[in-house]
């Protein structure tokens, strides 16, 4: 404010006199300069009286406001069917466009503007964009692409435009693959678009390994299967001769750990997804091993081992070696999951009397309990970003999938149903997939996914009855 104007000016005038004295080295009285000084001070005071009020009214600088809440709605985008640049690419262009749209709209973060509403039509990939036409239909992003068949390969090129800034968002890109992999091409395009708009990496070009289930509840047959994240391209990895449980991808997506009952007791097997060859991991005779998971570097696994009626956590090198114990308590410790940096492990234990979540160092040691809410907590999984832990919670006869910070704070329940369990994170840590089982004799397990905001809960189509999903990393 300007309230100090007069004082400041008066002081400034006095200071000016003193400064001049200092400059000239004058220290004595100044009879002949007294008048001048007084004059200056008087003038300064006058100026203050005249200008002060005017300045008090004036507002300096820009008007400043703060917006603390806005709206949460999907970002409207336009995706004209990609231009077929060669005569034989028409169907492929259409299919690829539809998969991209399904990927983007399926996140719940984007909303496609139907092609019938488009004003500008793209007859060629290089046509200039008429931004007003897209603003008129409230499109905020526009994706333009072209598809061609060249030398037996599908070639896709695309550009992304920010309509309201009237410019291209990032560079255009071109991808090529065999026609059989056209869905991966579409997923890759969608990943790039998602990443440029949201600022975080995508998760569309990824796969999910899960337990495919058939048959009635009391005689269910289970086998391992892998599919695209959206349920397409399902492939079976094992037959249904033995029960299999809890598959987990390796960090590079090339191997899968799972629990099998082929010996009559739970044992851990590792399967190479490239040749579908599975091998039993070594074990101590007379024990049962289950709930395995890779370390972030893929070099070792952590798992539960039951020995003499007590279950503890152990770790072992992937290529063999003697297992080493991580916990040693009479309680049941299971469902271990590494932090992304591999330094800590979160797991569930009933050492407090009920099933709760604990964190300890990756090398073992005294665990710290992090869950303190009502009910029981289980199957914790550390987020790829490292900031959250997803879990299953059972409380008041219902099951929930929830997330909490790694110190147990900010617990949020994302779902609620008769039976939700077994969360797994998308590669970018934005989405959680889990198993939802419906009640009744005819009920079955299905895969569902939900955004970590709790929105966009939806079923994963195309995989039928399924449970125990585990998301792969983004494919190369």
């Amino acid at each position, binding site marked *: 404010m300007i309230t100090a104007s007069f004082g400041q000016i008066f002081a400034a005038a006095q200071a000016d006199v003193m400064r001049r004295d200092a400059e000239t080295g004058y220290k004595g009285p100044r009879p002949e300069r007294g008048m001048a000084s007084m004059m200056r001070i008087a003038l300064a005071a006058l100026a203050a009286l005249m200008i002060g009020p005017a300045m008090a009214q004036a507002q300096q600088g820009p008007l400043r406001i703060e917006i603390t809440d806005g709206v949460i709605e*999907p970002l409207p985008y336009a995706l004209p069917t990609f231009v077929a640049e060669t005569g034989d690419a028409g169907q492929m262009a259409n299919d690829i466009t539809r998969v991209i749209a399904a990927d983007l709209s399926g996140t719940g973060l984007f909303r496609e503007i139907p092609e019938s509403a488009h004003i500008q039509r793209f007859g060629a990939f290089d046509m200039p964009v008429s931004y007003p036409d897209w603003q008129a239909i409230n499109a905020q992003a526009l994706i333009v692409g072209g598809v061609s068949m060249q030398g037996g390969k599908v070639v896709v090129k695309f550009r992304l435009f920010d309509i309201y800034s009237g410019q291209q968002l990032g560079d255009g890109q071109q991808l090529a693959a065999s026609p059989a992999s056209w869905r991966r091409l579409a997923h890759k395009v969608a990943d790039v678009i998602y990443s440029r708009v949201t600022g975080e990496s995508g998760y569309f070009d990824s796969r999910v390994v899960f337990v495919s289930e058939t048959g009635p509840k009391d005689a269910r047959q289970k086998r391992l299967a892998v599919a695209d994240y959206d349920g397409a391209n399902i492939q079976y990895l094992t037959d249904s001769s033995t029960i299999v449980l809890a598959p987990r991808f390796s960090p590079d997506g090339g191997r899968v750990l799972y629990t099998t009952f082929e010996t009559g007791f739970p044992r851990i097997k590792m399967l190479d997804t490239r040749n579908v060859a599975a091998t039993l991991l070594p074990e101590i005779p007379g024990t049962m091993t289950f709930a395995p998971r890779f370390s972030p570097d893929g070099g070792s696994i952590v798992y539960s081992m039951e020995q003499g009626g007590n279950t503890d956590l152990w770790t072992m090198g992937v290529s063999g070696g003697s297992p080493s114990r991580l916990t040693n308590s009479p309680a049941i410790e299971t469902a271990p999951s590494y932090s992304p940096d591999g330094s800590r492990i979160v797991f569930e234990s009933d050492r407090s009397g009920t099933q709760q979540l604990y964190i300890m160092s990756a090398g073992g040691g005294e665990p710290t309990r992090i869950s303190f809410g009502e009910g029981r907590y289980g199957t914790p999984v550390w987020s790829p970003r490292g900031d959250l832990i997803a879990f299953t919670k059972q409380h008041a006869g219902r099951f929930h999938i929830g997330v909490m910070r790694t110190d147990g704070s900010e617990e949020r329940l994302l779902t609620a149903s008769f039976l939700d369990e077994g969360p797994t994170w998308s590669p970018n840590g934005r989405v959680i997939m889990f198993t939802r089982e419906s009640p009744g004799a005819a009920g079955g397990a299905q895969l569902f996914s939900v955004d970590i905001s709790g929105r966009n809960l939806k079923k994963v189509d195309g995989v039928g009855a399924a449970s125990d999903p585990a998301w792969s990393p983004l494919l190369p």
Partner: protein
Amino acid sequence: MDRADKIGTGVSAVLHLGVIAWVLLGGSWFKPKPSEPIVMQEVSVISEAEFSAMVAAAPKASETPVAEMPAQPQPQPVEQPAPEEAPVPEPQPQPMPEPVAEPEPQPDMSDLEPVEPAEVTEVPPSMMPPVEVPQDTTTPDFSARPVPKPAPRVAPKPAEAPAPDAKVSELAEPETRPEESAEPEQVIEEPKEEAAPPEATTEIVTEATETEEVAKTSAPASSARPRTKPAKPAPAPTETAAAKPAAATKPAEAKPATDAVNDALAEAMAEEAQGTGGTGRAASGPPVTAGEKEALIVDVKACWNVGALSSEALRTTVTLRVAMNPDGKPDIGSIEMVGYEGGSDAAARQAYEAGRRAIVRCGSDGFPLPAEKYDHWREIEIVFNPEKMRMK
């Protein structure tokens, strides 16, 4: 009536009122609860003969439970359909062995070739062809870009140039003029250095280019219409141009009184302006009211969509500055991020884009701002703080 009578009357009145109040209210307050009405059970008397007749009829009851039993078997037939339902997907298990034997043809991921960004970017998409503006008719000869003014230091020719505008700096004038009596060439050169800088430009014009264009630079007559909004370069250059000659021409000794006032004013102004980063231009008229600010906030937040923001961007607060046109519409080209906190560069960029979209979308029809207070909102800083929008 003496005092004693009054007191007596008063006490009597109070007591009477009390009694009346007790009768009216106390009765209902202290009334005992009415006892619950006694419920009478009607009983009919039957004769012994009737009773024995009823007992004789009793054996029939043993048959009823038998009749109820069949109800339980029923659920079993109901369960039967369930196994039958399941066999529908059952056919699958039969060909089960296949997957094991057949090494799963992993989708040939190897053939997905890496990104080749270069090919697409070669033709940067452009806006629609610009509309042809007939403005060229007025400026056929000149380039739209202003021709740099002659810099006398470079061109030693005295010329007439200094005469018209050279007195921009009042302080310099007394010194420059007196010397004019001497030789024109050198006398003019000196004052130029002191007084002319405000006229000088950042470009040095050589003698070669200077000669003809100098005569032609009657810019105002044919200046082209500004193409886009000039990115407000005006204030800064004029300020520095005006301030410099004053400082340069008169070191310290001139007028102490005005000096002191100037200093004090400058100090006061600086203090006033600090923290706002303002343009230094004093606004006039009453300030924008809280209600008017609120209307602006409501308008902007309606378009601030954070739905597609990453969780990190939702932890980032960004401050955007935008220059406004008098009609309440934002100058799109002027929107800039002046600061952010709480996130990475990438997150800030996403948050900036979301804020920018909000300004552009809702500003396209003009913000509800009072035109008479334009000086107060010619520039707006908007802080987008997504604290309330975070996932909780």
